[in-house]
């Protein structure tokens, strides 16, 4: 009996923590679309240096720390899958943050071979929106130098 009650309490706690997470995430702007303007899927990038143009429709860009509704800042994911949506996006060489409100990203050290690019928008605290706003993942090729 006690066990049942304990299980019930644990389940309740688990559910409420999930709800708390859901409640904490910033709602996504209506109809918002995140997309890579350039390069196109399948592009061949000689030299491995390029500007990635980050597109956002029906929402606005705001630097990190600026918490306004219907805004977020861009993150460029390189050669990696989407991270967890309920925590801060990692910050490393595969997850580039554009907390300065940038809408273009300069890449200069892509090695020869195939690479994937994907955009993920996050709120002022670097956590993806609910539902998350991410672009299609594209593949580009850097030919041997």
């Amino acid at each position, binding site marked *: 009996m006690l066990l049942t009650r304990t299980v019930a309490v644990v389940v309740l706690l688990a559910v409420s923590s999930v709800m708390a997470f859901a409640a904490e995430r910033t709602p996504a702007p209506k109809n918002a679309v995140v997309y890579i303007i350039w390069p196109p899927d399948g592009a061949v990038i000689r030299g491995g240096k390029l500007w990635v143009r980050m*597109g956002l*429709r029906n929402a606005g860009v705001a*630097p990190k720390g600026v918490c306004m509704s219907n805004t977020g800042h861009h993150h460029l994911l390189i050669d990696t899958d989407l991270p967890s949506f309920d925590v801060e996006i990692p910050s490393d060489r595969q997850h580039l943050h554009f907390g300065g*409100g*940038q809408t273009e990203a300069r890449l200069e050290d892509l090695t020869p071979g195939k690479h994937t690019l994907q955009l993920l928008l996050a709120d002022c605290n670097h956590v993806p929106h609910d539902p998350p706003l991410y672009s299609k993942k594209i593949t580009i090729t850097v030919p041997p130098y």
Partner: protein
Amino acid sequence: MKIMIRNLLACLVSAVLFSGVAMADRTPAPENAYLYVGWPNDGEVVPANRPFRVWFGLRNMGVAPKGACVPNTGHHHLLIDTDLPPLDQEIPSDRNHIHFGAGQTETTIELPPGTHTLQLLMADCNHVPHDPPVYSTKKTIYVR
């Protein structure tokens, strides 16, 4: 004659002083900031009576909504069929000067048939252009 020269000098001095004060109020922009109209291209022919997308290109600088005063950021203004406004005061807000104070980086517009110009101008959180001002080249498009 002397008085005239003195008045002229006073005018000049105050003009310099006032412009100095106005300059100081303006938000600095990164020297290498680069603003451009991503699409349409210069000389583009756009079908009439159909909205088309205009996207805003910005390098070496960021976007922030109006009221969010963050260094090296600003928000976009699309100038349609008009020249650059005075760069030391708020950008007017009318049909020829469209503000994107929510941090938008593209828009959809519809223009009547004819020749039109598009130009972008960034402004700080208070709608005043930066120093130096960050603006794009002016593009001419044909709506037919």
